[in-house]
């Protein structure tokens, strides 16, 4: 019953003349094998040379009390440069989250500033904190962009804030968006709160391993308002209806301004800012926290790996656990908190890591659950310097 047998195709292959080459397309972007090789060589050469050349020619001089400007918090390429710039072996970088960075204070109100001031050794303690950081991300930051940190003294801060709830610990199964998500482990260990798709995870991994991508993000962060150059041309201003101030600006124009620095006047930070006030100034009360068990805390596990990583690179690490605002913890929860804090100290000391559990600061010196105000940092620096362990370690 079949009208045409399927074998006809085979027959056609045998009998029909050689088929005509189907058309390639309508343009002339048709590269031969050799042309592809040349293209790939050019591209790879660019990918290798351009970031290095840029590193060489782009002016970057972090001065006294330098900290990564808030707008460059995600410029990991610059963070790497910052660490590479630390040439003096006596200098001690302070690594940590916004507590080290100084969320509510000016650069001259940070812990590193007061440590320098109180030891009378300018630029010995360097603020290498990054705003919005947390142990899971800090681990990624140091692993991928902190390779120049080896065989030196490092102060590492552990903020127990990240264990105050499953949400803060990122162990809550409900997906959430959070800062520095591209730094957290993308595939393993699994982070329940992180639900990026596969492509995003690969892209994040590539950022860490291909300098070209990290450099490209640096250009975006430092010059194009955290967006790609084409998107920068479409950035709207505040007017109504909005206008496009960059529409006719040369894409090279932002390079003239150089890498952004700390703004001379920051309405959000410093003793004169409206945010710079004690945590309970607006009537906030102590809170019940949903503490995450040490054994199950992803943030604590990441911090443990981070300590191992730094020590494996030959660093002499001192860990500061705190300063959490204990005044914010409900009295009934204090024993649990103390128990966890002691356990953290015990584990660190068992590893041979110099550890300081500084006493809690007076309540008015805290701006929130973990960030001190300017006078809090001053006091914290004094407390640290008073510790025998610190004196011995920093000698």
């Amino acid at each position, binding site marked *: *019953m*079949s*009208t*045409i*047998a*399927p074998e*006809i*195709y*085979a*027959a*056609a*292959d*045998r*009998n*029909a003349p050689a088929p005509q080459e*189907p*058309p*390639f*397309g*309508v*343009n*002339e*972007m*048709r*590269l*031969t*094998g050799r*042309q*592809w090789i*040349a*293209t790939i060589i*050019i*591209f790879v050469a*660019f*990918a290798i040379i351009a970031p290095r050349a840029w590193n060489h020619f782009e002016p970057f001089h972090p001065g006294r009390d330098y900290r990564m400007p808030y707008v460059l918090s995600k410029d990991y390429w610059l963070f790497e440069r910052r660490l590479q710039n630390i040439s003096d072996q006596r200098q001690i970088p302070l690594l940590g989250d916004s507590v080290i960075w100084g969320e509510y204070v000016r650069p001259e109100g940070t812990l590193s500033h007061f440590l320098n001031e109180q030891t009378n050794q300018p630029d010995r303690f360097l603020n290498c904190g990054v705003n919005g950081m947390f142990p899971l991300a800090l681990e990624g930051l140091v692993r991928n962009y902190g390779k120049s940190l080896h065989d030196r003294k490092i102060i590492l801060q552990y903020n127990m804030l990240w264990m105050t709830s499953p949400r803060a610990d990122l162990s809550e199964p409900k997906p959430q968006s959070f800062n520095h998500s591209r730094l957290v482990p993308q595939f393993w260990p699994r982070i329940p709160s992180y639900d990026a*798709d*596969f*492509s995003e995870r*690969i*892209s994040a991994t*590539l950022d860490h391993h291909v300098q*070209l*991508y990290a450099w*490209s993000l640096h*250009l975006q962060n430092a010059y194009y308002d955290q967006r*790609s*150059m*084409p*998107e920068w*041309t*479409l950035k*709207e201003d505040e007017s109504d*209806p*909005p*206008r*496009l101030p*960059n*529409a*006719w600006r040369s*894409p090279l124009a932002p390079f003239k301004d150089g890498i952004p620095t700390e703004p001379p006047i920051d309405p959000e930070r410093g003793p004169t800012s409206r945010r710079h006030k004690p945590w309970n100034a607006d009537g906030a009360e102590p809170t019940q926290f949903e503490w995450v068990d040490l054994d199950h805390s992803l943030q604590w596990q990441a911090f443990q790996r981070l300590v191992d990583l730094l020590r494996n690179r030959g660093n002499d690490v001192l860990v500061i656990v705190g300063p959490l605002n204990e005044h914010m913890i409900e009295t009934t929860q204090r024993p649990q908190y103390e128990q966890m804090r002691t356990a953290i100290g015990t584990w660190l000391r068992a590893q041979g890591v110099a550890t300081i559990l500084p006493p809690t600061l007076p309540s008015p010196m805290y701006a929130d659950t973990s960030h001190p105000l300017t006078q809090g940092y001053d006091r914290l620096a004094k407390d640290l310097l008073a510790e025998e362990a610190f004196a011995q370690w920093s000698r």
Partner: protein
Amino acid sequence: MLFFKWEFLVFMAVVLPGFYALRRTRFWIPWLLAASYIFYARWNPYYLLLVIYSTALDYLLVTLMDHCPRTRGISPPPGLAREARHAEDDLQSKLGLSRNPGEDSQRRLLPYTNEARDSVLNGALLISLGLAATLIGGAAFGPSSLRPTFIVFSVLVLLMALGAWQASRRVWLFISIVNNLTLLLFFKYARFVEQNLNQLFASLHASFRLHDPSSLMPHGFAYLLPVGISFFTFQSMSYTIDFYLAKVARERNILRFATFVCFFPQLMAGPIERARQMLPQFQQAPPFRLQNLTDGASLFLGGLFKKVAIANYLGIYVERVYGTPTNYSAPTLALATVAFAWQIYADFSGYTDMARGLARMMGFHLVINFNHPYLSSGLGEFWTRWHISLSTWFRDYLYIPLGGNRRGTLATYRNLLIVFVVSGIWHGAAWTYVIWGLLHAIGIMLTRELERSQFYRERIPKIAKQIGVFAFVCFAWIFFRASSLSDAGLIIGRIFSSLWTSPQVPALMLAIILAVWLYQWMCESGLRQMLRFGPLRVAIAASMMIYLSLCATGGGAFIYFQF
């Protein structure tokens, strides 16, 4: 899984070597099929069932059609029957087969008797009747959420029983067309129809209301538009129609047929391939050729650049302006429309280039779908350059069966109107698409008339015609892009009435559009030779790769995925 995402690169890093490794075995077709199904299932695993269902049914229908005599019962219209016979003979001769024409025509014209009744058809009849009884029982006594599904399938199976009883090729063809169109209508247009009818009922103060189509879904299944449904149903349907017209041989291997229906590079947004172009390519694994790899990579790079560097960038601007048209004055709205014209071109032709490139890397050839449409000097020409696979599909399966241009001017224009309105509806369930199709139909009629005049043909410079066509196409795009008819009206109103203040448009955008236009113009001019200069090609390709690394603009799925 989008072509420009890393996930797809990983997918290809597995599929491509696997394909090459299996090329000499009989597993290469199952490998391609599995890859295609995995690719589709990444969107929505449930809708993979729809693809499999559509494939299996069309395969079965063609098999049953193949067991029916060519002349039986309700004979096809004389034109179609003659076309079918000629096409079959033509196919036979093209394929180098010698058959006895006398014997063949005898067989064709042999009256179909009960004695000669095919056992397959008998089996199909019995199974259909049994299945119909079961489904009707299910509809009567089964769970209420499954009742609509049971009813629909009962009707389908009863039709199949009729086909088997009549041993009629036309009934099988009818079932295939109805089934494919029903899938399309239900998933793509049901809500549109329901909303419009309910509005009508409300305006007539009728208390009757249609239920939302999602209420007809079997429980647990969401009512979503399956990605690529317009493409794979058209592709599958073309196979049954072509087989009916004897333009293509029956594909006996279901895996091969399934691979044809859902070949992953072109599954989501075409090009809509024909069975006679693709199935022969799936008969034997293509030999490995380095040129296929380099050509495929070239096509892919061009497509990737179009999508990521051009379409996504223009898309941000267009989205912003079309999102709040009242915020913008005439020049900005006009330029946003021009930007959309290039966005949709770069988006869709970029997808096609990538699809063609991926297929080419494996040694398969997909048809060219775009040919510098914005250089057209006539609207008719535009449609031979824009979405060519769809235009030719409508030409072959709608325009020509309607009579094409053989029955006088009025009938031709009626046919054009039908084709373009259907084409508009094919793009989406909204009145804006209908108007878009209607505009193109009217435009083609007008330009056909214009082209009859010697003055227009010979005295109007080509560039003026090109600009005119582009302006008209852009005007029609307003309806295509606007979120509603009122928005389209507002945009047109503002373009022609608001102040011509300084436009808010980035210089980079204009430069990109100009560069693409210039490149295309060079491709079609005597300067094309220059573009063949090897170092220039290398420089362009390397620049594209560097630009993509540094300046890629994030964006969502391809525009045509929604169709």
